[in-house]
């Protein structure tokens, strides 16, 4: 069992996201430590991309702040090396195909393994294109995370059968960003996922409040939150880590009372 899958055995998993280098890498390091100390089960680290087509305005702006601040792939690898001196929570990179492809997929993924990255999420690489990256990930024991969307329909079983680490279930149509209401019949999608795999499933896109997190955790094995955390960085900048720690603690508490079914 991979480190990521193990992380789901500790009750419902809370998975926060942060864009590395927003507004600088020191703040990212402090924020990741705050997340880890306050109950994050897996942490998603975004490597910024100039044109993040799956992101809403909040994370788009974080990508621009990070790139203007000088963050790049090598500096982010160094950040992870530093974090791994004390942070043991599974870490997952979230970025776009070109960032990995341009670095050289084999070189990128071998460094992931070396520095202690447990998984890779590429939102612009669907099932049909995944072997270009997933085959290398398997050789280096990095989980290639698959996404399932509200429109996946007849594709859910096929994707679930080959899933590794966890399944990222996209809650709604559209791009990332806070939503007041999630209307997709996620229970029905999770049911099909369960029929095809034991790999845990976490719901992301649009979740911000403890109530929403609780509601989603009742359906799935974990909850992913991005934009709500990035908003704290937008608002508090270098002071954000303390607020992020508090936010993660509240969210983990909200879902911590739900009995895990793994």
């Amino acid at each position: 069992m991979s480190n990521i899958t193990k992380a789901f055995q500790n009750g419902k998993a809370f998975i926060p996201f942060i864009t590395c280098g927003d507004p600088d890498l020191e703040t990212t390091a402090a924020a990741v430590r705050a997340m880890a100390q306050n109950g994050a089960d897996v942490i998603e680290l975004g490597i910024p991309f100039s044109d993040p087509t799956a992101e809403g305005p909040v994370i788009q702006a974080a990508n621009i702040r990070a790139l203007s601040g000088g963050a790049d792939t090598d500096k982010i690898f160094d950040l992870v090396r530093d974090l791994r001196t004390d942070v043991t929570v599974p870490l997952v990179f979230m970025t776009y195909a070109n960032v990995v492809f341009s670095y050289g997929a084999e070189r990128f993924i071998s460094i992931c393994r070396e520095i202690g990255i447990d998984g890779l999420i590429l939102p612009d690489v669907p099932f049909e294109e995944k072997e270009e990256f997933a085959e290398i990930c398997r050789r280096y024991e990095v989980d290639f995370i698959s996404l399932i969307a509200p429109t996946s329909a007849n594709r859910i079983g096929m994707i679930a059968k080959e899933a590794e680490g966890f399944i990222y279930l996209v809650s709604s149509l559209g791009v990332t960003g806070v939503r007041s209401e999630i209307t997709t019949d996620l229970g029905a999608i999770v049911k099909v996922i369960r029929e095809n795999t034991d790999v845990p499933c976490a719901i992301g896109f649009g979740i911000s409040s403890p109530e929403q997190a609780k509601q989603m955790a009742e359906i799935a094995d974990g909850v992913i939150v991005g934009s709500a955390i990035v908003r704290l960085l937008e608002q508090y900048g270098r002071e954000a880590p303390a607020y992020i720690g508090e936010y993660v603690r509240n969210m983990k508490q909200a879902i911590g009372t739900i009995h895990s079914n793994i």
Partner: protein
Amino acid sequence: MTNPNGRFGIHGGQYIPETLMNAVIELEEAYNHYKNDPAFNRELTELLNEYANRPSRLYFAERMTNDLGGAKIYLKREDLNHTGAHKINNVLGQALLAKKMGKTRLIAETGAGQHGVATATAAALLHMECVVFMGEEDTVRQALNVYRMRLLGAEVVAVKSGTRTLKDAVSEAMREWTNRISDTHYCLGSVMGPHPFPTIVRDFQAVISKEIKAQMLEKEGRLPDAVIACVGGGSNAIGSFYHFIGDKDVRLIGCEAAGRGIDTFETAATISTGRLGIFHGMKSYFCQDEHGQIAPVYSISAGLDYPGVGPEHAHLYDTGRAEYVAVTDDEAVNAFEYLSKTEGIIPAIESAHAVAHAIKLAPTLDKNQIIVITISGRGDKDCAAIARYRGEDIYE
């Protein structure tokens, strides 16, 4: 040329969010059904002929030929199409297909505004809702086209993200499509994006080379020695090349926008300055930095101001079947003025890039050789911007 996974050699593919996968699969299935449907093809041909004014003329540019003193020059007059550019060929095809698929709403990206105007036109004709995404900077450069789209009933969204040009308009249209799929077709304007778009758009634009071939055989009894077209994403170029790909003696020459020069950062010449990457749904060549961040490109021409190139062009370049050259702003503006004065034809600044290369090439060829230049659009939209480039204070 396309294999089942939508590849042209190593290029192409479907690098898009899972949310869109069933939409592109549905589109591919519908396209494969209707492309062989006689009723669909009759309806499309009638629209192209009766509404869009096809076939477009293949005009012998005698004054330009005499002036340059080399190869015989013909102009493929896509500028004479309804809405003033080749874009209508693809849009009528896609809009009709979308209608057959039960879609009621078209969304599109636009750079110079020609594809946006064509999409707004088709939407008006077929009674569909239409939203066009256009970089904020381009809404200023091409203000007249923004008005035309609104006049035709479309909503124009000024995109304020990134460099506020064509690449950002594509990103925003993709984001909107993931948000609303069931009633909406993304009417992509060039031979780019995820499979099946590069194939669909090429097939609808291939009418250009089909006509050139027939017209050339009728006028000259032989094929041309070279076909020249401008390349941004590359739709008018692939349309001009397609039926000649098997005719190895016909040189196929794509003209990219060099902006202020390929040795500067202010360029959009993807094949000259880019490298292999993955973006906007496809693997192809892209202008990018060492970390894979997409470069902020520049050209005087909003329609060529894009950091990538269609995957079939990337493959034609790899195999050596087509040549790609870079043309600067200065050369394009000179050609814009040259064709206006010499032949009384004001080309789009995009098409002027192809004219500029022909001006260089023609004198090096024999008088019995033949060049075809595709004039992909008309230049009325560019007059104010070119006047400003020449230091005249004209605003629309």
